[in-house]
């Protein structure tokens, strides 16, 4: 299948910051690529170059077979973009926002209005459609912004962190919307800081850090590199460590790790909460007292730790962003 989005050797520097440092991408038609990376990894820069908003210093990119640097106007006629921050006009109503975009895509008066109503309906915004966007919640704005990128039914769609800053409920809603969207055959490039999100939505994932691709594969392939989920527990008394290890070894998929100093036992498992409950039952029966217990899934942090040997810079990111997705993901 032909690659609808293709980028080779994209470089973009700002002063001595390498926003992109030789990024290659390929997205086959009708598939979803998740571009996964922490704050500052270069995700937005990549999206801006692919959507003709920014000229790379070097490298080439094609969207729908068209060179983004040489024929940007033709690229714009074929793409939809929903940027990292909802770019909707506060003072216009939802309907007016969509109608304006329709007209600017060159739709006639009637088709543009009909399309606006249709999209409001699809995105569950009909009731709010005639209210100024100022009164919308964050989730509603994001949905409206996404609707705006779909006005002209573009075959190629770019979504830059579509759920960052949303509450968990709105996030799940947004995932459903995007899932429905890709079922209809749109080629999608999606950026995210959440492994879970890439997992839910993307066919393939490219992990980037400091403007470079550091890993690529399906969600399962990436998780396999990092290891699956595991039970972590801290026992109250060091005497219980051997018992705990033996019990967990019966349930674990691999070697059980013990840290005597912190009295922590770690066991890779499959089977999720069921395994955890079974483990707790057996530990309880053996009279082991626990200080702490958790079922941990691999997080972006783990991916990073494994792939780069350094942790994603959570501290700096938390300060730079109102939302703290990385810290949240580790919880």
């Amino acid at each position: 299948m032909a690659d609808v989005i293709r980028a080779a050797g994209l470089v973009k520097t700002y002063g001595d910051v390498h926003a992109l440092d030789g990024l290659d991408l390929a997205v086959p038609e009708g598939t979803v690529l998740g571009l996964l990376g922490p704050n500052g990894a270069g995700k937005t820069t990549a999206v801006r170059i692919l959507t003709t908003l920014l000229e790379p210093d070097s490298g080439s990119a094609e969207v729908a077979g068209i060179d983004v640097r040489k024929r940007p106007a033709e690229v714009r006629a074929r793409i939809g973009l929903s940027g990292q921050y909802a770019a909707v006009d506060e003072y216009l109503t939802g309907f007016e926002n969509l109608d304006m975009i329709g007209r600017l895509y060159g739709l006639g008066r009637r088709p543009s209005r009909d399309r606006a109503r249709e999209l409001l309906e699809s995105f569950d915004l009909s009731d709010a459609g005639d209210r100024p966007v100022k009164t919308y919640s964050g989730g509603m704005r994001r949905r409206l912004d996404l609707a705006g990128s779909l006005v002209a039914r573009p075959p190629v769609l770019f979504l830059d962190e579509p759920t960052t800053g949303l509450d968990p409920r709105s996030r799940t809603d947004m995932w459903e919307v995007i899932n429905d969207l890709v079922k209809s055959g749109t080629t999608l490039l999606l950026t995210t800081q959440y492994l879970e999100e890439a997992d839910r939505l993307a066919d393939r994932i490219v992990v980037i850090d400091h403007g470079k691709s550091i890993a690529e594969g399906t969600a399962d392939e990436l998780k396999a590199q990092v290891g699956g989920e595991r039970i972590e527990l801290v026992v109250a008394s060091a005497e219980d460590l051997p018992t705990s290890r033996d019990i967990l070894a019966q349930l674990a998929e691999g070697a059980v790790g013990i840290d005597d100093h912190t009295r922590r036992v770690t066991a890779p498992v499959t089977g999720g909460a069921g395994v955890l409950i079974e483990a707790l039952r057996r530990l309880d029966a053996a009279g082991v007292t626990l200080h702490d217990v958790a079922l941990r899934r691999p997080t972006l942090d783990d991916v990073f730790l494994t792939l780069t040997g350094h942790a994603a810079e959570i501290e700096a990111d938390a300060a730079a962003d109102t939302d703290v997705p990385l810290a949240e993901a580790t919880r």
Partner: protein
Amino acid sequence: MTTLTKSMPAPGPLTPSRFKVFTDGAVVAKRNLIKIKRVPDLLVFSTMSPIMFILLFAYVFGSAIHPPGIGYREFLIPGIFVQTVIFGSTLTGAGLADDIQKGIIDRFRSLPMSRSAVLVGRTTSDVLNNVLVVVIMSGTGLLVGWRIRSSVGEAIVGFLLLLAFAYAISWIMAVVGLIVPSPEVVNNASFMIIFPLTFIANTFVPTQGFPTVLKAIANWNPVSSLAQASRQLFGNTGTTPLPNSPWSLHHPIIYTLLWIVGILIVFVPLAVRQYKRAASR
């Protein structure tokens, strides 16, 4: 949800219509005007200060300033018009800076719309805003004793010249708005420029008493020629310009028109170029 993208018409090669800059510009202008309608405070505040100016100057300075051959209020009102429409054009810069900050310009730039339509639409809606402002100002002027003593035709040309000059200034403000980081900075920067520009001129007081250097600047300042042209076209001139005034004040309409054309020739391409590279900040 499958209706979202199915029955997708193959997006054929765009036929960039020659008129797309105007149709797209109209869409953008309409959007800006909706904002003026929804946030009437904007209009209220942009007219409050000129009304205050009229009242302060007319009643505080009015007794001290005696332009030759004419009452001060008749002299003053065209000057206030000039200052007000120039301030009105700062809306262009502030609006663009705001749109960049909110990512709206990025959205526009990702659409297959005309590259200059955002600027055309912005400057157009700001001129329409200025029309409203001028109407309100004229009403206030009439209340304090200003009168149009020329013909209707001349008065209309007078208003058009004011709006045309403000339109040209809008394109300068567009460049400013596309460069500076926020609407607040646009507002502060334009204050710093517009106050000296409108005060070192015959806007509020006759220039006869100015020190030599300031007087030379004032004489050739297009703000002076615009104020002079307005006074002539509204019939508020008295004996000005004085016989020893320079060419610019003897032919204020032509001199002002030359400035308008000059500004547009320089700043329209500059603004369009800056728009194309404007990055969201």
